[in-house]
C-alpha cells in the first residue's frame, strides 16, 4: 500500500484523543470507543455495497434499507427456528444458531438484491430522478410486504446466551456482543480488501469505479460486474442488518430507513466509491455518534450532520476522492 493518504486516519485518531480529553474517565472512554467502533463497522458493512454500486454505475438505491430490514427479520425467524441452540449455555451450540442465521440473512439480502436490480433498477439506468423515485417506491412496497409476512408489531431479537453480558477488566466493562461485532466487522473488511486488492475481479471493480468506459473498451462486461457487486452489497447489507438487529435487540420495519440516514452521511463523507473512505467515514460516524450521545444526547444525530459539513468543507470531494 504505497501512497496512502494518512490524513483521514489521523482525523479518526484525533477524534479518539479529543474524546478522551472531553470525557475524562478512561474506563467510560474505552466502553464508548468499543461501542463506537462496533457501530462504525456495522455501518461500514451496510454502506460499502452502496458506495461501490454508486461508484460503478452511478446508481443510488434509496431502498438499500430494505435489505438491512430483511436481514434483521430473517435473523429473527432463523433464531426462532434454532431457539433451543440459541438459548443453550454453550458457545458452540450458540454458534450453531448464529452462523446459520447470519448466512440466511446475507443470502436473503443478496437474493432480494438480485431481484431488485433486475426489476426495479435496470429499467432506469442513467436517470437519477427516476432512480430516486422508483427505489423509494420499491422501499414502500417492500416495507409493506415485510408487514404482510412478519406482521406489524415490534419483534424481539434476543442475543444468543453466550453473547449476553460483558467482560469486566478492572473497572472497564466490555459488552461481549460488541466485541464479537468488532471481530466480524474487521474480518469482513479484511476479506473485502483482499478481494479488491488481490484478485482480478477486485481489480476490475476498482478500475470500473475509476473509469467505466475504459474497462468496457478493454472488453469486460461492466454490467455483469455491476450485478455481482449489487448482489454482494445487498448480502452485506443483509448481514449488517442481522448484526445490527442483534445489537439493538428489537426490530421494526423502519430499522433500515433509520440506518439509511447514517449510511448516506458516510457515503457523502467517503467520496463515493472508495472502500477505504467508506471504512474511515463509518468509523468516524460510529465514534462521534457514541461520544456525542454520551456527552450531550440531544444533538447526537446533529453531530453526524456537523461531521458531514466539516468533512465537506475540508475536502469537498469526500475523504478519498475517486478520480473521475
Amino acid at each position, binding site marked *: 500500500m504505497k501512497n496512502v493518504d494518512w490524513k483521514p486516519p489521523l482525523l479518526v485518531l484525533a477524534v479518539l484523543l479529543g474524546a478522551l480529553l472531553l470525557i475524562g474517565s478512561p474506563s467510560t472512554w474505552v466502553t464508548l470507543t468499543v461501542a463506537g467502533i462496533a457501530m462504525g463497522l456495522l455501518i461500514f458493512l451496510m454502506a460499502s455495497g452502496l458506495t461501490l454500486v454508486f461508484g460503478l454505475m452511478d446508481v443510488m438505491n434509496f431502498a438499500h434499507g430494505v435489505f438491512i430490514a430483511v436481514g434483521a427479520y430473517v435473523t429473527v425467524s432463523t433464531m426462532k427456528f434454532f431457539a433451543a441452540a440459541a438459548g443453550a449455555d454453550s458457545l458452540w451450540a450458540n454458534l450453531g444458531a448464529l452462523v446459520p442465521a447470519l448466512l440466511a440473512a446475507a443470502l436473503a439480502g443478496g437474493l432480494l438484491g438480485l431481484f431488485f436490480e433486475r426489476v426495479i433498477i435496470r429499467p432506469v439506468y442513467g436517470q437519477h*430522478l*427516476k432512480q430516486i423515485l422508483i427505489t423509494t417506491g420499491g422501499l414502500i*412496497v417492500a416495507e*409493506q410486504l415485510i408487514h404482510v409476512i412478519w406482521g406489524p408489531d415490534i419483534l424481539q431479537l434476543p442475543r444468543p446466551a453466550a453473547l449476553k453480558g460483558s467482560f469486566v477488566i478492572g473497572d472497564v466493562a466490555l459488552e461481549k456482543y460488541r466485541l464479537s461485532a468488532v471481530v466480524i466487522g474487521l474480518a469482513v473488511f479484511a476479506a473485502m480488501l483482499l478481494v479488491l486488492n488481490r484478485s482480478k475481479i477486485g481489480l476490475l471493480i476498482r478500475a470500473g469505479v475509476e473509469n467505466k468506459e475504459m474497462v468496457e473498451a478493454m472488453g469486460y462486461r461492466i454490467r455483469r460486474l455491476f450485478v455481482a457487486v449489487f448482489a454482494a452489497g445487498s448480502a452485506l447489507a443483509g448481514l449488517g442488518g442481522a448484526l445490527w438487529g442483534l445489537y439493538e435487540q428489537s426490530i421494526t420495519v423502519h430499522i433500515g430507513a433509520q440506518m439509511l*440516514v447514517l449510511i*448516506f452521511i458516510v457515503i457523502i463523507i467517503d467520496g463515493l466509491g472508495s472502500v477505504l473512505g467508506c471504512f474511515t467515514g463509518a468509523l468516524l460516524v460510529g465514534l462521534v455518534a457514541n461520544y456525542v450521545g454520551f456527552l450531550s444526547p*440531544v444533538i447526537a444525530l*446533529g453531530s453526524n450532520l456537523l461531521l458531514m459539513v466539516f468533512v465537506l468543507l475540508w475536502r469537498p470531494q469526500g475523504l478519498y476522492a475517486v478520480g473521475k
Partner: protein
Amino acid sequence: MITRLLSGDRIGSRALAVILAGILFALAFAPYLFPGTRALDVAVKVCVFVLLVASYDLLLGYTGIVSFAHTMFFGIGGYGVAIALSRMDVGWAAVAAGTLAALALSLSLSFVIGLFSLRVKAIFFAMITLAVASFFQILASQLSGLTGGEDGLTFRVPELLRTRVTAYYLVFAVALALFLVLLRVVNSPFVRVLLSIRENEFRSEALGYRTVIYRTIANCLGALVATVAGVLYALWLRYNGPNTTLDFAIMIDLLLMVVIGGMGTMYGAVIGAAIFVVAQNYLQAGMKALAGTLKGVPLLPELFHPDRWLLWFGILFVLSVYYFPRGIVGQLRAKT
C-alpha cells in the same frame, strides 16, 4: 377571465376540466355537501395537501430535484403557529407572529440547504435533505420544552376560527389563492429557465443562467408555500405534533401524490392530492370488506388488510413511474 385567473395554464383535456371543476365545486361547498366532522376533515386535508403537493411539484416536476425535506418546512409552519399560540395571548397577533417566524426560519434553512447542496448532483441534494429532515424530526421530539416532544402541542385558536365552517373557508380561500399564485409562477419566464435547467443543465449554464441561483430560489419558494400549508393545517387541527406534520410517511405520501397526479403540472397536484386523501380515508373500509370475503384463503387476507393500503399505492406508484411518467393528467391529455 378564467384563462387569466389560471395564468393561461393550458388544461388541455375536456375530461380533466370536468374533473377539476368537480373537485373545486366539492371543496367550495364541502360544509354543505358533506355534513359530518369526518368529511370536513377530509376536505381540509385535501385543501392543505393540494397546496403542499403543488409546492413540491415545483421542485420535483419543474426543477427536477428530489427533496426529502419538504415535510420539514410543513412542520416548521405547524410548529410556528403552535408555539406562538400556546405561549402568547390567543389572537391574530400570535398567528401572524408565528407564521412570520416560521416563514423566516424556512426561508433561511431552505436557502442554506440549497446553496450548500444544489451545486452538486441532484442525488446529493436528495441525500442531504434526507439527513437534515431526519435531524430536524429528532430535534423536534427532543426539545420537548418548546415543541411538546412526542405529544406535540395542543393550543387555542382565535375566536373566529372556533366555528368550523369559518375555519374551513379560511383554509380553502388561502389554499385556493396560493394555488393560483403558484399557477402564475409556473407560467412565468422564471420557470421557463427552471425547465431548461431541468432538461439540460450544462446548456443553460452556457446560455448565461446561474443554475444554482435559480434552483435555490425554486427551493425557497417551495419551502415557503409548504410552511403556509403547515400553518393552515395546524390552525385547523388546533394541534401540531411530529406525527401530523413531520413524519417521514407524509413525505412518502407527497411523492406518491405528485407522481400519480402528474409531475410537472399544477393540476396534477389537485388530482393527486384529492384521490390520495380520499383513498386514505375511505379505501380502508373497502379493503376491510374485501379482506372479510377472502377469509380462509392463505396470505390474501393479509395482503388486503386495511392497514396494507399503502402497499397497493406503492405498486401503483412504481408502475406509474415506469409507464405513465406524466401521471393521470398526462394520460388524460394524451387522449385528446
